[in-house]
């Protein structure tokens, strides 16, 4: 604390010194994010452009590792009473952040500023609204989609991507090739062990991940992912892996993508945000396209959003909060979101950005970039595709992944594995609910 005081005296002196030169030093705002690689560069560009666009506020962006690493850093910072002004936190953190008592709800900030939040894309608005309020503002938005190798499909006699689970399996069988020794030279597809995919596949059938309509009518008290929709989704993946139509890449996203981009697997499921990386790695060696996720024949539904939102933390002076909010407004403005979309593969979060002539021209050139928007806008507006909300979503996802791994290894049937996982999830939910009350 003493050091801090000296630091602020120092900052004060520096401020006075600068004050002689410039009228007023910009207010500093810290922004912690989890965007690595290409996406991280895009964040840096965005922040630089914002700082250059005005001189009242100066944002300092800090890469804080993965979303999980970021939460670890945040927990330390909150205990030390020096949280950042803004942090990017993944979709799953919604309820925990809302109930943390550490943030200023974005709706309150917008109201004070008379800023209209109704321009946010409908599927995102539905996901991030809890009790009729925004706690964070969606910043990077994705969903899950199917990537397929057009050349490989054509060689097997297919001219369009599979639309149903059944079709997908049929495609995968025809696409799987073996050499004379029986070792696989091309897999039909690859889908890694990732709870988010299962969640999306459940929504795509109109099902729920947690009870009380995905926790949207009332606080969730138990999970629902072990219902028929979840079982179908997990079984679909497990059966194809066990049949040898897909390699077992485990949880490794890079390994999964490399299986596709190296040409060893003809189709794969991944976040829409991976488009840039896939493009770079394929490097024109074959043609690929994107399409909506398949669903079991005869079911209806649509995927929910993924990605992360920006949260503003309290206990900062008013002028700093003001700057933080000002930056968020900039970050979700149509032009910024278009640049962001172009650089990263995340789709724009506001309707206005979709309407920009630049956006339309860009999509004409890059039809793959438009797929996620088509997918997400086609999702029926029900509580399934609104996306599940629960305080322990990160744990729920871990439990789903454990179940998938058990089933893939043949150590349990899909139903058994999911029921076991559900039991653990339910305990975690009960514990959380009693802790926050």
């Amino acid at each position, binding site marked *: *604390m*003493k*050091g*801090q005081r*000296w*630091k602020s005296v120092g900052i004060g002196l520096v401020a006075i010194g600068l004050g002689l030169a410039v009228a007023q030093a910009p207010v500093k705002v*810290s922004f*912690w994010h*989890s*965007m*690595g*690689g*290409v*996406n*991280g*560069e895009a964040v840096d560009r965005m922040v630089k452009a914002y700082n250059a666009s005005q001189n009242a506020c100066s944002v*300092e962006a*800090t*890469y*804080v*590792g*993965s979303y999980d*690493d970021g939460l*670890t*850093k945040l*927990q*330390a*910072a909150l*205990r*030390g009473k*020096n949280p*950042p002004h803004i942090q990017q936190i993944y979709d799953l953190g919604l309820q925990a952040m809302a109930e943390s008592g550490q943030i200023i709800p974005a709706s309150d900030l917008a109201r004070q500023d008379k800023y209209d939040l109704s321009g946010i894309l409908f599927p995102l608005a539905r996901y991030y609204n809890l009790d009729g309020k925004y706690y964070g503002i969606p910043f990077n938005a994705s969903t899950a989609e199917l990537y397929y190798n057009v050349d490989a499909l054509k060689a097997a006699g297919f001219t369009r991507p599979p639309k149903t689970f059944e079709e997908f399996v049929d495609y995968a069988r025809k696409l799987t090739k073996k050499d004379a020794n029986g070792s696989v030279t091309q897999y039909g597809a690859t889908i890694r062990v990732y709870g988010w995919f299962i969640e999306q596949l459940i929504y795509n059938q109109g099902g729920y991940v947690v009870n009380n309509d995905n926790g949207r009518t009332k606080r969730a008290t138990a999970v629902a992912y072990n219902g028929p929709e979840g079982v179908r989704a997990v079984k679909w993946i497990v059966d194809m892996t066990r049949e040898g139509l897909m390699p077992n890449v485990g949880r490794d*996203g*890079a390994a999964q993508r*490399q299986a596709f*981009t*190296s*040409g*060893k697997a003809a189709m794969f499921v*991944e*976040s829409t*945000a*991976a488009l*840039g*990386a896939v493009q*770079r*790695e394929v*490097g024109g*060696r074959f043609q690929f396209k994107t399409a909506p996720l398949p669903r079991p024949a005869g079911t209806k539904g649509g995927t929910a959003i993924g990605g992360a939102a920006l949260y503003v933390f309290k206990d900062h002076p008013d002028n700093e909060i003001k700057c933080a909010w000002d930056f968020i407004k900039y970050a979700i403005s149509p032009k910024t979101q278009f640049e962001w979309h172009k650089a*990263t*593969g995340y789709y724009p979060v506001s309707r206005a950005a979709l309407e920009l002539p630049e956006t339309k021209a860009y999509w004409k050139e890059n039809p793959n970039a438009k797929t996620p928007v088509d997918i997400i806008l086609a999702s029926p507006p029900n509580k399934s595709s609104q996306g599940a909300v629960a305080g322990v979503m990160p744990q729920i996802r871990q439990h789903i992944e454990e179940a998938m791994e058990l089933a893939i290894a043949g150590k349990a049937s899909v139903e058994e594995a999911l029921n076991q996982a559900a039991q653990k999830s339910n305990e975690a939910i009960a514990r959380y609910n009693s802790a926050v009350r």
Partner: protein
Amino acid sequence: MNASQPLPQTRKRRPWGEWILSYAGLTLLAVLVLMPVLVLLSASLKPPGDVFEYPPRLIPREFSLENYQGALEKAPLTRYLFNTLLVALGVTLGQLLTSALAAFGFARLNFPAKRALFLGVLGTYMVPWELTLIPNYLTISNLGLLDSYWGLVLPFLAGAFGIFLLRQNFLQIPEEYFDAAKMDGATPLQQLRFVAMPLARPALASLALLTFLNTWNQYLWPLIVTSAPTWRTAQIGLRFFLVDQEGSNYGFVAAGAILVLAPTLIAFIVLERAFVRGISVGGVKG
């Protein structure tokens, strides 16, 4: 066992068969041991388009430094490497000093509660790091040392492993050496400086290398106590490429990994001489 037996300088000539067997064994082991590093080196030197070719090729069809250029451009890795180097050197020097002093105390000096203190020191070696992460963050934050070299160095200036390793070595030095020094009127500090430390050179070199490397490996601690790029370390830069599941670029990752390996490799080659010198000096050990 007899002390002061000099290593015989001449050995019997070995039969050819044993020579060939030795070389074969050494070469096989060396290839196995080096495989992971070779694989990485090979990937980092391929043009980005060839990184994922299958079947994999250990010797690139075409050599390219594009991945290195990319990795250095995308993150301020040189600054990060410099920071890590400074921090690792600081921690290493600090640990050598505090460990040598404490180890000498435990090995050769007498004071009350010695055994209890030694057990206490050993006990700290077993404390899981998760326990210390947040309290230490609070300490560093209260001292106003977030975003500073001190914040990165201070918590690691002493450690049980070093004390344990050096004490073990100091105990093996024959009493006669110290008796001789004492007769010459050497103070305990001088005995440490002129008798114990030179004779324990391989142990000091091992400790230096391991401390350097452990500090080099740190990820969560630097991530938590630094925010400004000015103070961040190379591991954080490496994760920038690695952790991001959706956008990671394996060519860059490989190049970054090799860049992060280079300084520790140099430290190792420098210290390797110390092991060897230490071993031959320590030929008098019993």
